[in-house]
């Protein structure tokens, strides 16, 4: 019996809308490798460009967080369930940097500028 990988809702569009997939794998890393080979679009959402699991991607083998086991080297055996559980984070950047499309960013910059630069005085 292979290892079952549970896919969270936000990643299902990149995994053929499936909520799970099964692979033969001896470690968590191997299972995730199979998963991202079969569904290549998943890779950038799970891993950073240098191949590390993103900080907000939590992986459990059965009920155990792999951070407290051997991380991606955590061994798996047939019948195990690997769950990918999101954690959610965000917040303002004090520099005012934004991550929106060009026009919206431009409008935002204009608004910001109008806050920084007081309106010109009109002559009395």
């Amino acid at each position, binding site marked *: 019996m292979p290892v079952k990988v549970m896919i969270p809702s936000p990643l299902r569009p990149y995994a053929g809308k499936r909520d799970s997939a099964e692979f033969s794998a001896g470690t968590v890393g191997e299972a995730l490798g199979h998963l991202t080979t079969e569904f290549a679009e998943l890779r950038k*959402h799970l891993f950073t460009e240098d191949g590390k699991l993103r900080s907000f991607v939590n992986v459990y083998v059965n009920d155990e967080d792999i951070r407290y086991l051997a991380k991606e080297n955590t061994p798996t055996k047939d019948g195990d369930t690997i769950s990918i*559980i*999101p*954690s959610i*984070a*965000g*917040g303002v950047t004090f520099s005012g940097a934004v991550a929106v499309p060009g026009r919206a960013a431009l409008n935002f910059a204009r608004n910001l500028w109008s806050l920084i630069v007081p309106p010109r005085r009109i002559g009395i």
Partner: protein
Amino acid sequence: MADAAALWISGSLAEKIRAHGAETYPHECCGALLGRDSSAVLESDHGKGALTLAREILQLFPLVNRRDDSPRNRFSVTAEDVLTAEKAARQQGLEVVGWYHSHPDHPARPSEYDRDHAWPWYSYIIVSVQNGAPQDMTSWRLNDDRAEFSPEGIEIRHRAAVSATGFSTTEK
């Protein structure tokens, strides 16, 4: 991917998000958006053939911001909280379709930090809270390539205009 995305929410739920932002000010608030994601692609109201993906929010699941170290400019929802929210959604026949948080004394625009930590597919509602008073509220979805967010139009709809089992395409 559709040309545009729309998020349907009742006025009272939208007001609850704004009130949560005011309540936790000057700290960031956060919570889960429980609802339904329509697989149907709806015609736009303008009849120009543009397509809209609609999603409706039916419940909120307010959460405690876990970032004790910098709650004024960061929020965090743990994996355990995510599982709790998902369980609450399932019990009501819904799913977690997104998250909301506030930007105290900052615009309702996603930051680079928001983008770097975002998941695709989810709706991210941001409410700006200026000097304790809630202001603009916007919603965003991360693009497939993770490079930026796209704005998602928030449509305030009376609950009665949304059918119990799905979406009404005729009423506003």
